[in-house]
């Protein structure tokens, strides 16, 4: 089924193909394991994990938009100890790299989760969600300031036993400066992009649809933004990028590679079609033939490399 033509090396992580479900769109894999063998995936990025249990936001938590959706789930998760004991243990049955997304509201929170999770034997990498408000800096998100983002990355790198990917927020004026700052702080790779902040208002109630008022926009609608940002960043850094934002097809994967991604994550598409990831993987090889390349790695950054 799989072929070495699709294999990629992502900051030292050997992936049999470049497709993984995106964090927050796949739970911890249990639900989708009822549809297909998770070993088919190149990797699995599991839901954001925090020190303590998070109950998440009130409902409604999702609202549809043209070609996309807004979500404000609020990082609902059972807390790091339960994630380790119940979810990561359950995932041990699969022979595919596990990437754990970690979140917090203080540097100490992040460090505690990173320290604990990176020591778990089946965790291949951490993905640092820096789109959270930093309570010690007046609520400014870690990911919107190069200095704060860099400092957080440095602290995580000190305690992590596995590669650290920093998931960049698109809600910034200059994504390249943030990318360079976290690279300099030791990040092993980047995940691009997190959701774009958005809002929808109900005409009948005249109020925002989401109980949280604002939410993160995902889906095909944001793909051009992600492609543009990866194009810009990949030419300025020397660490690999996991591209994400509206990946629904093998063509989308190819486009992300051309922009400079080394792997892709599939998010919202899982909700539309639970078989989205394996379907995309199955179609990729045909695209390599069409593009006239032997290995998908030949396409990384091919859009800007002369």
């Amino acid at each position, binding site marked *: 089924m799989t072929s070495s033509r699709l294999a990629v090396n992502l900051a030292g992580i050997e992936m049999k193909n470049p497709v993984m479900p995106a964090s*927050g*769109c*796949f*739970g911890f894999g*249990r*639900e*989708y394991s*009822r*549809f297909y063998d998770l070993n088919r995936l190149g990797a699995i990025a599991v839901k954001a994990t925090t020190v303590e249990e998070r*109950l*998440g936001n009130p*409902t*409604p*938590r*999702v*609202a*549809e*938009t*043209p*070609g*996309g*959706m807004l*979500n404000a*789930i609020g990082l*609902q998760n059972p807390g790091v100890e339960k994630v380790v004991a119940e979810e990561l243990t359950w995932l041990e049955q699969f022979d595919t790299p596990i990437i754990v997304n970690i979140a917090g509201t203080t540097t100490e929170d992040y460090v505690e989760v990173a320290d604990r999770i990176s020591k778990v034997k089946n965790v291949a990498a951490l993905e640092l969600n820096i789109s959270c408000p930093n309570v010690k800096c007046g609520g400014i998100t870690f990911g919107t300031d190069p200095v704060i983002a860099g400092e957080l990355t440095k602290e995580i790198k000190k305690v992590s036993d596995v590669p650290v990917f920093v998931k960049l927020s698109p809600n910034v004026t200059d994504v390249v400066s943030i990318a360079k700052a976290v690279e300099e702080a030791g990040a092993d790779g980047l995940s691009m992009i997190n959701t774009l902040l958005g809002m929808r208002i109900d005409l009948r109630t005249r109020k925002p649809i989401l109980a949280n008022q604002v939410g993160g926009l995902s*889906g*095909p609608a944001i793909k051009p933004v992600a492609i543009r940002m990866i194009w810009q960043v990949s030419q300025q850094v020397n660490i690999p990028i996991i591209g994400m934002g509206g990946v*629904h097809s093998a063509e989308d994967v190819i486009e992300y590679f051309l922009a400079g991604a080394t792997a892709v994550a599939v998010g*919202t598409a*899982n*909700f*539309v*079609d*639970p*078989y989205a990831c394996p379907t995309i993987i199955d179609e990729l090889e045909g695209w390599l033939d069409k593009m006239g390349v032997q290995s998908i790695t030949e396409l990384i950054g091919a859009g800007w490399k002369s």
Partner: protein
Amino acid sequence: MDKGLLTVISNEPVADRVFRIRLQGDLVKLMDSPGQFLHVKCGPGIDPLLRRPISICDVDLETATLDMIYRAEGSGTRILSESVPGAEIDILGPLGHGFPVGHRKEGEHALLIGGGVGVPPLLYLAKRLVKQGVKVTSVIGFGTTEQVFLVEELGQLGEVYVTTIDGSRGHKGLVTDLLNEQYGLGNASWDVLYSCGPFPMLKALQDRYADSDKEGYLSLEQRMGCGVGACLACVCPASEESAKSYQKICSDGPVFEMRKVVLS
């Protein structure tokens, strides 16, 4: 549960902006539990992007056909209402936990309470209960007479009381107005309650029977993402630990024991 294409057999209006669609295909053979729902891709492409959760109204396992009744309210269901016979619809399902019926005993009396587009799943439920020898009484509420549907079919399975808010058909008022001795629906007259409908109706039922020992099940609705329990969009607080944890409506529900969820 799986994903598949079902063929449209018919798709006709049954009330004001309310349609009944009949679909046929292999996937129907999995749909043997009343109260489950289907996650429906209403049209091809990326707009509308997400599936729409619609309850299963009736199933004929022998002919592999199912009926759904839905209101053409938003962009997705309006597109669905334009589907013609022969078209194929992308369906994910059956999803969720339906109404528990396995433990019902012959001779029991079940009260089925529905409101608006919450009425449809009660038909498949009523058929199942009657087959098990359970007596069924339906109390169904709508806004106006133009919105009323399923009265005759439910009437073939037991007594039906209709309420409308404007009084244009049946009793003027709400379904809860009828749940008393005057209508033979006092607490002592029935063994179990099954309900699906708007949030205020479910809340009124929960409050009404909170201090009793009556057995009851409520089917909840919420905006959904994945429909399979992964995205955590459609949650409601669980009552056991009050606000300590959530139930997922799509995969833990949509049907919950009446006292297991907090409706606030």
